[in-house]
């Protein structure tokens, strides 16, 4: 898979000047504050906005302003799930799905998609009788049936409450695993992006400011992500052992092992762990008899300023993985933290994402 795009779009009081260059398959998380142009960038990819620029997906050029090439949206092979589900109100759920399947010649996949997203019980329902989460599931199914070469999800969970989000996230993960096409996922929730995205693209006031593997960007102290209250590193590991008595599992990350509250995973599964910087404290000696389960030896890579009176410290674990810790400026000084210094990271909470 490959995706290459660059757009410039001028609007009153807003300028989009963004580019995407992705060569690996998987989920691309497009992240940035509200109003930074994430949705506009998606709309440019879809051909719904007429930006100047270039866009290529796989070996098909969708747009090249220099050559006057502009493929209209319906000929691009884009699947898009909008923030509002936009189901057709004059059809029931089945009608909405068949609308997509007929035009993409995927009627034979209808049953499979209905299965994947558990849409069976909804098929005969009118769209206005569905809950917000159900509507997004139908919209997602409809997008999958359109046999897209690129799937765009524009904050599909933004309008849902926390409970509905938990209900639909597993479906998104299933879709992600079943797809061989690139998926661009827009969100302003770091947690969602960390959970779903393999790679991240950061946006700020209309510009794409960084792109790379999610774990790298989340631990990059030069990026605004590290300054957020919910800053934190992302570790990728493998489930090694299960301890049902204490409701814990052991996850191997590089040369370390972390114990994490038990989750619905099997031995050998690859999992993502998110470790908030504010939940990591540092000591110079290995703590004895502590209630904290995960204490890892680490090396300081860099120390930088964070919010008022705080410092953000980037650490490297024994296997080379990056970890962020946010401590008080005073502590950083008293511990004389500087690059190369050996410390112990005490991790108060780890979330399986």
């Amino acid at each position, binding site marked *: 898979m490959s995706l290459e795009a660059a757009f410039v779009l001028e609007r009153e009081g807003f300028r989009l000047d963004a580019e995407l260059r992705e060569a690996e398959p998987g989920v691309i998380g497009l992240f940035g504050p509200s109003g930074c142009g994430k949705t506009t960038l998606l709309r440019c990819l879809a051909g719904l906005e007429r930006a100047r620029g270039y866009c290529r997906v796989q070996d098909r050029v969708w747009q090249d302003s220099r050559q006057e090439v502009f493929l*209209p949206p319906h000929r691009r092979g884009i699947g898009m799930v909008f923030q509002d589900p936009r189901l057709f109100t004059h059809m029931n759920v089945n009608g909405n799905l068949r*609308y997509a399947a007929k035009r993409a010649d995927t009627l034979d996949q209808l049953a499979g998609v209905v299965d994947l997203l558990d849409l069976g019980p909804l098929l005969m329902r009118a769209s206005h009788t569905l809950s917000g989460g159900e509507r997004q599931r139908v919209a997602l199914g409809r997008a999958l049936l359109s046999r897209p070469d690129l799937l765009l999800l524009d904050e599909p969970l933004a309008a849902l409450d926390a409970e509905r989000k938990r209900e639909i996230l597993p479906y998104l993960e299933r879709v992600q695993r079943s797809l061989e096409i690139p998926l661009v996922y827009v969100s302003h929730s770091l947690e969602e992006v960390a959970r779903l995205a393999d790679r991240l693209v950061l946006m700020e006031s209309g510009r794409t400011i960084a792109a790379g593997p999610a774990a790298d960007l989340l631990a990059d102290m030069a990026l605004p992500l590290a300054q957020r209250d919910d800053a934190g590193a992302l570790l990728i590991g493998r489930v090694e052992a299960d301890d049902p008595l204490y409701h814990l599992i052991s996850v191997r990350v590089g040369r370390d092992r972390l114990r994490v509250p038990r989750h619905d995973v099997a031995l050998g599964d690859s999992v993502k762990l998110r470790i908030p910087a504010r939940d990591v404290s540092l000591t110079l000696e290995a703590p004895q008899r502590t209630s904290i389960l995960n204490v890892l030896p680490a090396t300081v890579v860099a120390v930088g300023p964070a919010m008022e009176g705080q410092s953000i410290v980037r650490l490297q674990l024994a296997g080379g993985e990056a970890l962020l810790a946010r401590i008080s400026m005073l502590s950083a000084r008293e511990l004389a933290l500087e690059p190369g210094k050996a410390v112990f990271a005490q991790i108060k909470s780890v979330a399986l994402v």
Partner: protein
Amino acid sequence: MALSPADIDALWVTLRLAALTTLILLLIGTPLAWWLAQTRFRGKALVEAIVALPLVLPPTVLGFYLLIALGARGPLGELLTALGLRPLAFTFAGLVVGSVLYSLPFVVQPLQNAFVAVGRAPLEAAAMLRAGPWDRFFTVVVPLARRGFVTATALGFAHTVGEFGVVLMIGGNIPGETRVLSIAIYDHVEALDYAHAHTLAAGLLVLSFVMLWLVYRSNRHAASVMP
């Protein structure tokens, strides 16, 4: 009391005129309304004002200018004569032209409002599902705007049935050709034949009422299925 053959002729002319006019109006009014609903063209207000003119003009004004334009010595009349055709004044075809202009806003405005109400969102969704422009129009816009189409059809038809001034100016009163119901009623009243006038007037009243009632009822019904 039974209708006289002349009255039946008048009824027949009226229904033919209204049906043909409505059909033509839907064919030209739909693209016009769609264009007005979509365009960001600066001259849009000008076009809207022209479309709305028949709402405020006395029908006799419209009829007067049409008579001049379509008559044997009018610009259009001369063109038609030059092409070997009859001028349109005092013909059924002339009535159709007049009625189309006269009832234009009654078809265009409900359609335009319905198209605006559909909005861009469902169209963009359909485009993302590989539906081209025509496909989107017929499978998304038309069903979502169907209340607008019902209203436009009923108003266009009913308004043409109720036409008087324009017909009087350009159609004259030729039985079986341009003599419509409203003119027939006028003639009966002139001749103090109130009984015939009553039959036709009451018939027209009931017809118009039933049509409007059906429209409003179907709209209410539609509203309950499509919030």
